[in-house]
């Protein structure tokens, strides 16, 4: 299938606020994108099946009340469970950005692709603050989303709850498992590519093991804290006045990877 024939669902709910630029990014990468309100899915007016890929954009779904992403996630998990599960099992790509990452964790889809009880959490940043800053990301496990990235890429984060927490007492074991399964595609690092080791602000949230993104073992579902749509063009970079405004940025490569993968398997 050609990229242009792909139809990507950018799912929004009340409080989603990065849907427009995310849809733009998809279109500029060459695919079709449609922003659809979750209520349309819940009421059966639209269906996941119509689409080749799903993106859960950033924002504050339902005001991030209770916990970031929790309300939207629980609605999806309880009312669209089957559709969502089969979408994932068909191998269609699902990308959660920031709030979307939180949603994917709260649905249980991350880390192992099963809708159900969450096995991870995204907790309040260690600084107890909202953190809006650019970070460096070290590419780890290969996923369709990240394979086109350079070893060290740059994107901005903007969140209050971005600290990945693993189940107490089982952190090391689960971490090893995630690593073995190639499930940690991005980690916070220094400009030179050395792991952040929790150091602030390289790792802006205090995320466990510097985890910035998590994917399923199959690799078609990924959640990431940084915002690729805000690093899509070079002119969006915080230092383009030093290094030039021309060309695409690292964020573009995330969308490109996702879409080429979707096109390739159809």
């Amino acid at each position, binding site marked *: 299938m050609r990229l242009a024939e792909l139809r990507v669902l950018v799912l929004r709910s009340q409080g989603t606020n990065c849907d427009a630029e995310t849809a733009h990014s998809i279109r500029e990468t060459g695919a079709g994108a449609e922003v659809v309100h979750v209520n349309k899915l819940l009421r059966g007016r639209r269906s996941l099946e119509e689409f080749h890929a799903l993106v859960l954009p950033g924002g504050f779904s339902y*005001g991030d009340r209770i916990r970031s992403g929790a309300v939207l996630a629980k609605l999806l998990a309880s009312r669209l469970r089957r559709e969502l599960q089969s979408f994932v099992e068909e191998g269609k790509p699902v990308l959660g950005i920031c709030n979307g990452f939180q949603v994917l964790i709260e649905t249980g889809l991350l880390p192992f692709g099963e809708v159900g009880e969450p096995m991870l959490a995204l907790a309040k940043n260690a600084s107890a603050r*909202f953190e*809006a800053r650019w970070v460096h990301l070290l590419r780890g496990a290969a996923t369709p989303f990240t394979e086109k990235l350079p070893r060290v890429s740059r994107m901005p984060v903007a969140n*209050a709850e971005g600290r990945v927490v693993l189940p107490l007492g089982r952190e090391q074991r689960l971490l090893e498992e995630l690593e073995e399964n190639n499930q940690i595609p991005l980690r916070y690092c220094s400009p030179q590519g050395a792991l952040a080791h929790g150091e602030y602000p390289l790792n802006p949230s205090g995320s466990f093991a510097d985890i910035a993104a998590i994917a399923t073992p199959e690799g078609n579902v990924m959640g990431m804290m940084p*915002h690729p749509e*805000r690093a899509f063009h070079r002119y*969006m970079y*915080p230092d383009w*006045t030093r290094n030039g405004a021309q060309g695409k940025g690292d964020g573009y490569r995330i969308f490109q990877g996702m879409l080429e993968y979707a096109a390739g398997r159809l």
Partner: protein
Amino acid sequence: MVPLREASDEELAEISERRQLALNLEEMRAIQRYYRRLGREPTDVELETFAQTWSEHCVHKTFKGVISYEGEEIDGLLRSTIARVTRELSPEWCFSVFEDNAGIVDFEGDYAIAFKVETHNHPSAIEPFGGAATGVGGVIRDVLGVWGEPIANTDVLCFGPLDYPYEKLPRDVKHPRFIFTYVVAGIGSYGNNIGVPTVNGAIYFDEGYVGNPLVYCGTLGIVKKSKYKRSARPGDVLLLVGGRTGRDGIHGVTFASSELEEGAEETFGTAVQIGDPIEEEKIKRAILQVREEELGSAITDLGGGGLSSAVGEQAHRFGCGARVHLERVPLKYAGMKPWEIWISESQERMLLIVPPSNLERVLEIFAGEEVEATPIGELIPEPRLEVYYRGEKVAELDMDFLFSGLPRVKREARWSPPELEEPEFEMRDLGEELHRLLAMPNIASKEEVIRTYDHEVKAMTVLKPLQGVAWDGPGDAAVLKPLRNSWRGIAVSCGMNPLYGKIDPYWMAASAIDEAIRNNIAVGGRRIALLDNFCWGNPEKPENLGGLVRAAKACYDIALAYGTPFISGKDSLYNESPLGAVTPSLLISALGIVEDVRRAVSMDFKERGNYIYLLGETKPELGGSHYYKLRGFLGTSVPGVEPSRARRTFEALTRAIDLGLVKACHDLSEGGLGVALAEMCFSGGVGAELCLEAVPVSQEMRADFILFSESNSRFLVEVEPENAGQFEALMKHVRFARVGETSGGELVVSYRGEELLREDIGELKRSWQRGVAL
């Protein structure tokens, strides 16, 4: 019914007081005469309507009244100063000025940019989180109220010193640290949640803000001119959309038009609100859809005065009347009285006017976004405001009297220069002084605050508030690229100089304008439009008003000379607390066009071995400077502005930027040359060598004065040596000089062969970053 016709003057005053109407005796008498003519008594709903519609907050009595000042009769300060600039310039690119909730200027094709800045001072003093948050929410609604899509926020905040002793705080005055913390949290929370980036602002600290913190909130939006509907007619439906109406915010405008006295918390406790950004985000989506489908005939926000102001003003605007049924208004809880419903200022509500044939589709759009939308009445041909509650008429007012019956206020204004002296003191080690200046709270890095605000959501922020090699240098203005398929951008900047006002408000205003403009020019902005926001003490005190008049006069003189029209603004008077009047503060916000955002210039030095130019003339103008303040002085030599010379500088610099000759540019403001240079160095990770004797001065000056004078209209510019000839040719008619070169890791300043200062730029940065911790 309220017995008014037979009331004595004392009784009139007592009624106004007891009902918190904030109407003065003359106004009460005008109302009394009206009812004597009608031959009946007013209802409480009617009285409240007058109180709202005639409040300082809603009609700007002072700015529209008659002021006598130094033998001169000023017939409408707004009209004869601020708005007059725009009238005399009347640029064809001004789409809508002073008439709407926000000023609107052309951008590109069918697109225009709306900009509005508001203040939310009193609420923020009392409930800083909620006050600041609803300040953001309110100004965003101003932009929605011109069918605009909000794209960016600004915030300028003024607090007392963060180390202010607790013992000195009067009862009911919250500590500056408490206010600072929660105001910042409130701004961030609302802006981040609703998904509008906060891209520009400033923070000032001064003793005068202890009792009167100031919170200025601005919003920019994109307007489609062809979809800007203002065509309501009788028969059109009044549609109330958004959150439910509660008792909150009752008497907010009368509150804003009164001084903050002890016990204000109890009296005005209901004026406090927290806000719900998600509700507003939903409203925004629905309104933009209604706009796209062109289903509405008018729109306005519900701000001060709630329904009573919004309905009345809209009907008045379209030359008709309105009929409203208050029992249709969805309430948060039962038991509200009709007048409470009528004037409630519950947040997150808007008023749409919709032709009946479009109503069904509009309701469907709102339902789709999970927003309540309720028809509450309609416009009627008769020029009357009729309000019903459960079938009973609770108010019937003549539109004409309501909108033109307000007796014009007459006020006295007086100003005499304060008795001040120019200080005499010895120069100390300039390296140390520079470190201390950089750490002064007004100058120090605000990064901790800025990073709690999302400044990039929407992916339009091309030049960010923080710039440079480590993304942490202090930018002069933000540049946004509002359209995905166009390189045209806008530059947003601000200027404010509260310290200068303590010497002369005229030069304070002139300097604020100059600063806002030069910040904008520095990044590549042009065709600049201005907004003014006055925060002053009680204007009934002639000394307060005198300063205000002087500032307004400067706005006229300077903005006209610069060719920069005002497009909107606002005044907040009565900023008084048990500690006295606020430090008079004029914020100027500037909106410029950037032809191609790829040519925008950041302030960080880019490379070693480049030339450093200083544009503009340095004068012994240290009155109100941070250098004086550091040494404990105020002084008298407040910076002036010479518009014709400055304009030449601005224009030449713009040409140089367009030709790509400018590698970095920073304006000189607080802390003057020394601070600006240090900022450019540590932001770029590049040192500099500066020869002070090369600086163009107006007269012989001490080295420390050259280094720290705050003369206006100056820039530092980095230019590559191979472009020096072309750059200098462009500057032919400008006072300028090459003052140094970029170099290694140090900032070195010499004067006539003697080294005055040699500092490591990393150390300078550390001093600057230590200044203000959240």
